[in-house]
């Protein structure tokens, strides 16, 4: 699977989500605009941002954004962490076949560290909570292959 962080990594998740429509259909409608923010740290020189659009049961768009483009992308929610924390989560998913108890999106973001879930409008951020099974399953697609 493609290295993280890269637009190819997220496109693989997108393709796997769209190829597994029965699984995502069973979880319910999934509709949001998201940004995955990867913060620079010892493992990454500059911050990177990836936009995603989810519609019905699919991920219909993946793109890389400049920092200056994030606001205009109008995300409902932004999931943000240092690169090392993203990589740890993905490595755990690959090793376990799905996120284990310590690496679920909610577990990682509840206290605001190591991940942070935020946005300009709390009701739009709440979409992340309302549809969380789908977003967890989206990232758990990193385990395949």
């Amino acid at each position: 699977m493609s290295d993280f962080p890269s637009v190819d990594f997220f496109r693989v998740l997108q393709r796997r989500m769209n190829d597994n429509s029965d699984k995502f259909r069973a979880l319910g409608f999934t509709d949001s605009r998201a940004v995955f923010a990867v913060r620079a740290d010892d493992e990454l020189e500059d911050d990177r941002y990836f936009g995603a659009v989810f519609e019905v049961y699919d991920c219909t768009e993946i793109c890389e954004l400049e920092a200056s483009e994030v606001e205009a992308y109008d995300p409902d929610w932004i999931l943000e962490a240092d690169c090392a924390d993203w990589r740890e989560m993905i490595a755990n998913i690959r090793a376990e076949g799905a996120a284990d108890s310590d690496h679920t999106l909610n577990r990682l973001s509840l206290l605001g560290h190591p991940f942070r879930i935020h946005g300009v409008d709390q009701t739009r951020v709440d979409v992340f909570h309302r549809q969380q099974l789908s977003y967890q399953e989206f990232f758990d697609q990193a385990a395949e292959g």
Partner: protein
Amino acid sequence: MASIPTRREAAERYANLPQVRRWRDGNYEPGAWFNSDPESPESPWGNWGREFKPTRRGITTVDLNRAFDDVPDQGAGLVVDRGGGADAGATRWEYPLNQRYEVWAYNLESLLEEAISRQWSATSDLPWDKLEPLPDDQERAMCQFLSFLHPVEFTPTDILPHYMMRVDPSFPEVRQFMATQCADESRHMEAFGKRMFANGGGPGIEPTAEALLSMSADTLSSALKPEDHPDVIGPTNPRATWEFLGMSYSVQMMGEAVVLDFFRFGEFLGRNPCDKEMFRRVLQDEARHVSFGTMRIKYYLDHAPAEERERALEMLHYFASVDEATASGFGLLINPNVIEPFALMAAGSTGELDKGWDMVREFWAGCVEEYLARCDRAGFPRRDKCLIPREAPF
């Protein structure tokens, strides 16, 4: 008491009904439902012949309402479908909540469809076979936590039906969404009840959470004292609109937001796939309820007549101040029977309780910030008024 008719009298009564006599005479000519021209302005078939194409989702309320654009500002007081007709003699009812601004929410239709598409079964959708034995102290803490969550689900299912029956049927989406919420709460109660026993535990001490939450109702009564609002509130019947608005604040926007945070913390603390999935599913449901309450208040404040809006804002702020000061919702976070098991689960063992309490303190600050962000969104900012300590008072 009226006497009950005999079988013969009842049969005569049926036989003498005008339509039955007509059919007995062999006159099967259909009535107005068939003979009126659906395209005529006088026709009861108000929405006949309009274009509507299903989307990939299927047939959704969002698409229907977009196509028909027929949600009225005022309810008809009739138990009929929007756009449909009624017999001339149909009873008109005075529903206390009969204005669109009193009941609607910006995200109502999409939330309703999301609720329908995300229903689940506590019996078969949770991986019960992946529930793992926990250390005794952890299982006891989990069961004590569930002993709070299980009965607290009574609160919305006790309260919501009272308002559902008061909403004019011209706004069925509102009743339908609240019905999904009642179904959600019932399923949560089922899931928590099953989980309490599934791992060898059982119910612990009920922390009187419902009583704590119902303090909000007392606050509301106080906020709606007739002598304070003589031109708005009748002597015995506080205005239903504000009652409903207060309910959306206390139950859906504040109380359920705190419970949503509890569910999120439950997922955070879960140590096996079953507990994780249970909390992930209930938190999804709860977030919908909070979202409805928040955006319903916003819709009201954006659309109510100016004077009513100003007075409603005053009432909401008063109500919120009393709730915050008396900790009627956030009081759950200082209830020993709720928070102590939380801290123990977060700690992992009784020897690490300090660590667990540090997490609870962080959790408190996050809950308050999200509450304030929702107040901002709803249109009654509380940041300079909030009486809940921003940091945990312990």
